[in-house]
């Protein structure tokens, strides 16, 4: 044996030597190929001024693309946050199921938003939905060229936008960057549903619903607001998606929860609420910290350009402020109302603040951002108690966080609207008074809520009729991990209780 090894070793060393020499001689006379990541033309243009302009334009677009991609990555990272929060706040026996749902939902969203969602949302069309370039981003588009009204976004550019995705022709980045940024938002809406319906939904039914949500429902209401549709064009404002993303996810979740009913054992016959503690508060806390970080992509990234830095800095500070005051608001509310500072409430409070500031972050002052977050933190505690009271079972508080505070944030934009900040930071001033803006926001909340809730209810019912939405009681008691996936999350640990 040892001899064999010695022989092989010798052979290898000799081969190495030989190769070394051979390569020396056959030294490649062509230069190693270049990774010309910059698509700057290799041939020098004739006019140096024009060339300089183009080179600087590339720099501008490069910077804005870096910003958009990095913030999109942060939003992508929120998938990890949702997976941890939702699995942490559920029981160990359903942990694999929730992780799998949250994992696969983004994969599925990627496909459905690519195939159709993007087109419905951003394709030129009616006030109701996109109609051009529907499939696979197949329409004409010369991004990063800018629309006529937005040339100041890249003052070095000399081309003008021509294409079918004109609702998003205000950001000076390439089409694929726009796509990816919007995709991670679409994925977020789908993830929200996962937590509310957890611990009892069939894996396959959830998958089908998520696919449809991202392919049809989310893009249509999204079109109304961000895609050139009737809400956005009538002064409805939602900077980063309190309504477009969060309350849409929340309405879809509410419909699902109603169709599913509560988990076994959650509500006693006597009307008593039996809390079902989450199995892993380390997961939950880490998850919320991930989401807090991810929101620094969600809101500041929604500028979709780095600009001169002042808008993104303002938005980021507003985001952080609301997260902080939301956490403190929930801490205080929980301490006063429930006697002890319950961690899961503080975590929900943080998320509530973040959801609430998402719409108004570019329209209100920092002080008002702090107030909006603080109120959100209190509201979320009350909402959790309220949903328990009306026997709507939402294991992770998704409705209280995303639906209730998605609505609150959208309305808060009206209540605290500041036309100067709307001009400087958002670049989307409406010139309305606060009362007027509030009314516009209210209408938008109403239409989006009605459409999404009813639509989702229909889809859930159809799925229920076709294949069923809920696992059997036996499977629910044993846990979905074994029933749906044949796995256990923590096979080396002794679990407690039969729950």
């Amino acid at each position, binding site marked *: 044996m040892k001899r064999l090894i010695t022989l092989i070793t010798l052979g290898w060393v000799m081969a190495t030597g030989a190769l070394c020499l051979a390569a020396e001689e056959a030294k490649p006379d062509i230069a190693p190929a270049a990774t010309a990541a910059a698509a700057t033309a290799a041939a020098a243009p004739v006019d140096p001024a024009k060339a300089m302009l183009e080179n600087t334009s590339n720099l501008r677009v490069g910077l804005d693309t870096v910003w958009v991609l990095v913030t999109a990555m942060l939003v992508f990272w929120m998938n990890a946050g949702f997976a941890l929060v939702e699995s942490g706040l559920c029981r160990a026996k359903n942990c694999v199921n929730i992780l799998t749902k949250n994992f696969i939902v983004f994969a599925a969203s990627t496909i459905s938003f690519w195939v159709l969602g993007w087109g419905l949302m951003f394709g030129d069309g009616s006030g109701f939905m996109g109609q051009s370039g529907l499939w696979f981003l197949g329409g004409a588009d010369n991004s990063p060229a800018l629309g006529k009204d937005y040339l100041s976004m890249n003052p070095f550019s000399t081309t003008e936008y021509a294409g079918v995705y004109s609702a998003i022709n205000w950001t000076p980045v390439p089409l694929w960057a726009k796509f990816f940024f919007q995709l991670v938002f679409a994925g977020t809406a789908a993830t929200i549903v996962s937590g509310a319906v957890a611990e009892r939904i069939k894996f396959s039914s959830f998958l089908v619903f998520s696919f449809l949500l991202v392919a049809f429902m989310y893009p249509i209401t999204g079109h109304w607001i961000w895609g050139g549709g009737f809400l956005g064009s009538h002064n409805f404002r939602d900077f980063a998606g309190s309504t477009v993303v969060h309350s849409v996810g929340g309405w879809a979740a509410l419909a699902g929860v109603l169709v599913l009913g509560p988990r076994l054992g959650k509500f006693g016959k006597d009307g008593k609420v039996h809390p079902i503690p989450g199995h892993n508060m380390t997961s939950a806390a880490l998850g919320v910290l991930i989401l807090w970080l991810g929101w620094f992509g969600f809101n500041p990234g929604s500028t979709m350009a780095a600009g001169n830095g002042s808008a993104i800095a303002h938005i980021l500070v507003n985001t952080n402020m609301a997260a902080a005051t939301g956490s403190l608001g929930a801490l205080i509310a929980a301490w006063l109302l429930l006697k002890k500072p319950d961690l899961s409430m503080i975590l929900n409070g943080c998320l509530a603040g973040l959801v609430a500031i998402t719409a108004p972050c570019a329209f209100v002052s920092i002080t008002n951002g702090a107030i909006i977050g603080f109120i959100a933190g209190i509201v979320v505690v009350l909402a959790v108690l309220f949903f328990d009271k009306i026997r709507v079972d939402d294991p992770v508080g998704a409705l209280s966080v995303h639906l209730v505070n998605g609505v609150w944030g959208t309305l808060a934009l009206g209540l605290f609207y500041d036309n100067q900040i709307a001009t400087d930071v958002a670049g989307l001033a409406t010139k309305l008074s606060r009362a007027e803006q509030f009314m516009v926001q209210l209408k938008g909340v109403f239409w989006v809520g009605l459409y999404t809730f009813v639509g989702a209810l229909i889809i859930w019912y159809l799925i229920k009729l076709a294949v069923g939405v809920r696992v059997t009681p036996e499977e629910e008691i044993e846990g979905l991990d*074994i029933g749906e996936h044949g*796995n256990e999350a923590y096979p080396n640990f002794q*679990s*407690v209780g039969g*729950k």
Partner: protein
Amino acid sequence: MKKIEAIIKPFKLEEVKDALGDIGIEGMTVSEVKGFGRQKGHTEIYRGSEYTVDFLPKIKIETVVGDSQLEAAVAAIIKAAKTGKIGDGKVFIYTVDEAIRIRTEEKGNSAV
């Protein structure tokens, strides 16, 4: 004195505890065990290979009672724990030579 040892389905614990409480038995010790019997385990899959988990989670309740309480206690347990489906479990009864309450050093029936 007798020790009653009942192996039951985990989700029946609350009901059995309440049933014992109803007849005045307020002391018991509970542990998590794995049971093997007629009720078969389930198959899990991991990375393409199936394997059987033979042992099912069960709860073991141990309560030491005076001879006079024995019958009532056993009846209460059986009533509360029965689902009629396989795997409901067993009750075993043993004789206890002595029982002592550590706090007071009381012995016998008054210790349980």
